[in-house]
């Protein structure tokens, strides 16, 4: 977790070059190899713009983005896109192929990978996302969660070192969401990729290694979920929520229950309550 793989330095971006208010103002941060970084913020906070800066879908007006030592510019975008895979919000609008197999192949076809190699990688990647039995399926016969897993397989097949999820779970039902999060979790556990997840699902963000909170196009906070959720009401005031166990810990502390800390997951809160109870 020490080696920095992406450096974002003083990035500013305006969609409309004449407009006063930039979509991003002076944003700087690092992404470390192998970590799961969650970027959170309400709709319009600049988090999706930020995601599009990372692989050159947008180029910064000011500041620099460096990925694996390559500085992002018109000349290097294609090189960088091989290193950063991106999964978008709408499962339908990123499914290019006629079948699962075609779609997983699309990214590899673009960079000219030989066919025999593609066949191998399709098998490998669809197995990881558990879609290997659906290779001939057409997209309109797949659920949202399945389509997103296919999108992940398509990204993996190109073997990038970084995967960016741009609200990839926000249009899914709870089952689909779980499927996708579990898939990403397994990728991270296997050490396959560095994960950057743009989300407003705070329960999901609480599982990440680190979080960045965006607000009004600026970086509002950065740190481990524990450090970030300590901001409490400040997060609520910018349109975010807190995980249930955190809210509950907080309420219990207010009621005078002597908790040592505010918990980010249910298990650790239950454990501490058990200790408290035993000490009574």
């Amino acid at each position, binding site marked *: 977790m020490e080696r920095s793989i992406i450096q974002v330095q003083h990035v500013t971006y305006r969609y409309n070059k004449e407009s006063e208010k930039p979509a991003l103002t002076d944003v700087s941060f690092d992404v470390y190899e192998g970590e799961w970084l969650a970027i959170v913020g309400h709709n319009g906070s600049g988090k999706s713009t930020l995601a599009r800066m990372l692989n050159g879908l947008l180029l910064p007006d000011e500041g620099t983005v460096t990925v694996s030592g390559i500085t992002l510019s018109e000349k290097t975008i294609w090189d960088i896109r091989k290193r950063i895979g991106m999964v*978008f919000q709408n499962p339908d609008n*990123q499914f290019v192929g006629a079948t699962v197999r075609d779609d997983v192949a699309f990214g*590899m*076809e673009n960079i*000219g990978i*030989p066919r025999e190699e593609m066949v191998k990688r399709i098998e490998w990647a669809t197995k990881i996302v558990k879609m290997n039995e659906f290779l001939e399926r*057409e997209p*309109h016969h797949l659920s949202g969660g399945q389509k997103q897993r296919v999108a992940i397989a398509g990204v993996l097949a190109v073997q990038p070192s970084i995967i960016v999820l741009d609200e990839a779970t926000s249009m899914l039902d709870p089952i689909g969401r779980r499927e996708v999060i579990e898939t990403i979790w397994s990728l991270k556990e296997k050490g396959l990729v560095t994960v950057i997840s743009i989300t407003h699902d705070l329960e999901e963000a609480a599982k990440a290694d680190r979080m960045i909170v965006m607000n009004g196009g600026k970086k509002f906070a950065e740190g481990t979920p524990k450090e970030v959720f300590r901001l409490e009401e400040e997060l609520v005031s910018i349109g975010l929520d807190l995980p249930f166990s955190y809210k509950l810990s907080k309420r219990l502390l207010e009621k005078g229950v002597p908790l040592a800390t505010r918990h980010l997951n249910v298990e650790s809160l239950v454990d501490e309550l058990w200790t408290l109870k035993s000490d009574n």
Partner: protein
Amino acid sequence: MIDNIIIGKYVPGSTVIHRMDPRAKLLTIFLYVFIVFFANNGITYFLLGLFTFIIILLTKLPFSFLWNGLKPVIWIVGFTFLLHILVTKEGDMLFRFGFFSIYEEGLRQGFFISLRFIFLIFMTTTLTLTTTPIEITDGMESLLKPFKKFKLPVHELALMMSISLRFIPTLLEETEKILKAQMARGVDFTSGPVKERIKAIVPLLVPLFISAFKRAEELATAMEARGYRGSEGRTKIRQLKWGAIDSIMMASILLLSIILLLLRA
């Protein structure tokens, strides 16, 4: 409603015809369209019919599927038939009713021309019933490759085609959703004066276009993010395999063409 429209075309199967290379199928159809016009007497029509019949048998498709393909155009066939009967005034007169007279040659021609139509429709229906649209696209792309030299954007056309095909079900679903949403807001698409009904299409079309444009934009972004930059340096996962069956088919259609040329009156 959606599945009906889509699956109504391609019928999955694993017959010889299903497994043929789409290029072979396309070339066969292409040749067939020409030789249909070679036939002009009993024996040539018989051979043409026999060939068509054998192909249909090989697909193992129920005849009702072919009939469905014929249904929408049957009135054109009927119309052609009538036209020939009424216009051609050669051979013996068979029947007369006032100004209205039917000659032997008219009946013969009407019959043969209608048969040509029916054969053509059967063959093309067989193609679409046994070949997925995406295979047809692949076949076309491959066959049109030589025209790249003449600046024909073959790859782009094929990609456009395959993306359109892929989005048909999505857009149909979308149409149904918007239709229902507007009906819930009191729009009546099915009754009332024609003028009102035409006006009722606006609340359907505007959201549909907006959504289609939004989809196109997002799709373009996703394709760009996945490294798409045109046909250059691109490899393909889909590959076409020319097999023995395909060669046999090409040989048979060529043979048929020659026989028809020799036997035609």
